[in-house]
């Protein structure tokens, strides 16, 4: 499986993604520049974390108008696999590929720590190698990770089983204390209705090597590689 890792000016998790993916059997990853217009030859797209275009205007807003994002939209529309991590999640929301938006953390602080997540659904190509209710330990690092959607959108996300991961404590309880940023319903990651686009604030690519303290992020990439 060949992954395209998109690089915007200000991306800073692109190298981590390429490194993590290239270490997996059956996966190769290459950088794709934001001015490129084609994703030909790639099987999946990673929109990595960072501060694309300096987070000007709104996080991810400028990136969503870049040439490569027009190609990512077509790729997603034809059923291609797209995963957006952190700033990548913000970009996918700004592009309209995922519902809702990410706003300033409730506590105003930039939060950088290991965080527990509960797998809410394994009915996706991103979580099928996990078990429902599995608790993952994956780092977060963001200032604007508070997921917001109106009541109707939230109801639809729940009804369609689109919420794939929620913030929780080490026992898997989705409490207010375990919500690091004020996200509605402790939402950490969602997929689109057709289940081929996934966005999450936590960084699975930073949890793929025992030297980094956790390998729980592997389950996301293993899910993608498991056909």
């Amino acid at each position: 499986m060949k992954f395209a890792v998109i690089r915007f000016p200000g991306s800073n998790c692109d190298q981590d993604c390429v490194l993590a993916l290239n270490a997996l059997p059956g996966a190769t990853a290459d950088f794709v520049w934001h001015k490129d217009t084609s994703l030909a030859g790639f099987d999946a797209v990673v929109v990595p974390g960072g501060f694309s275009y300096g987070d000007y205007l709104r996080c991810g807003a400028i990136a969503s108008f870049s040439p490569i994002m027009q190609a990512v939209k077509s790729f997603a529309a034809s059923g291609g696999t797209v995963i957006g991590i952190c700033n990548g999640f913000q970009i996918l929301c700004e592009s309209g590929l995922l519902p809702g938006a990410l706003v300033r953390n409730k506590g105003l602080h930039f939060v950088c720590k290991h965080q527990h997540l509960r797998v809410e659904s394994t009915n996706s190509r991103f979580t099928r190698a996990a078990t429902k209710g599995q608790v993952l330990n994956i780092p977060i690092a963001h200032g604007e990770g508070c997921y917001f959607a109106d009541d109707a959108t939230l109801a639809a996300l729940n009804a369609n089983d689109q919420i794939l991961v929620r913030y929780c404590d080490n026992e898997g309880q989705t409490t207010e204390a375990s919500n690091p940023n004020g996200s509605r319903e402790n939402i950490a990651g969602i997929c689109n209705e057709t289940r081929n686009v996934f966005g999450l604030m936590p960084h699975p690519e930073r949890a793929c090597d025992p030297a980094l303290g956790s390998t729980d992020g592997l389950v996301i990439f293993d899910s993608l590689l498991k056909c």
Partner: protein
Amino acid sequence: MFESIGNETLRTMKILVNVMPKPSVLDPQGAAAAEALKHLGLAGVGRVRIGKVVEIELPDNTEESEIHRAARELLSNPVIEDYSITK
């Protein structure tokens, strides 16, 4: 205002796009500023909301609908923000 481009003289205008968080969206910046305003000694501070203003120079004959399109599709995010336009 007048601006010369080649032999043509174009009338331009400045418009302001005012972007505010929707009332239903948490605005922790506004809440923090409200606290600081109380510390400043301002009496009776209620809810504080922080938005932004974008000033754009445009040709005078720019269609209203084009300004709204820019405000809706780029300058604001309708999921979390409302906008208004001041000419």
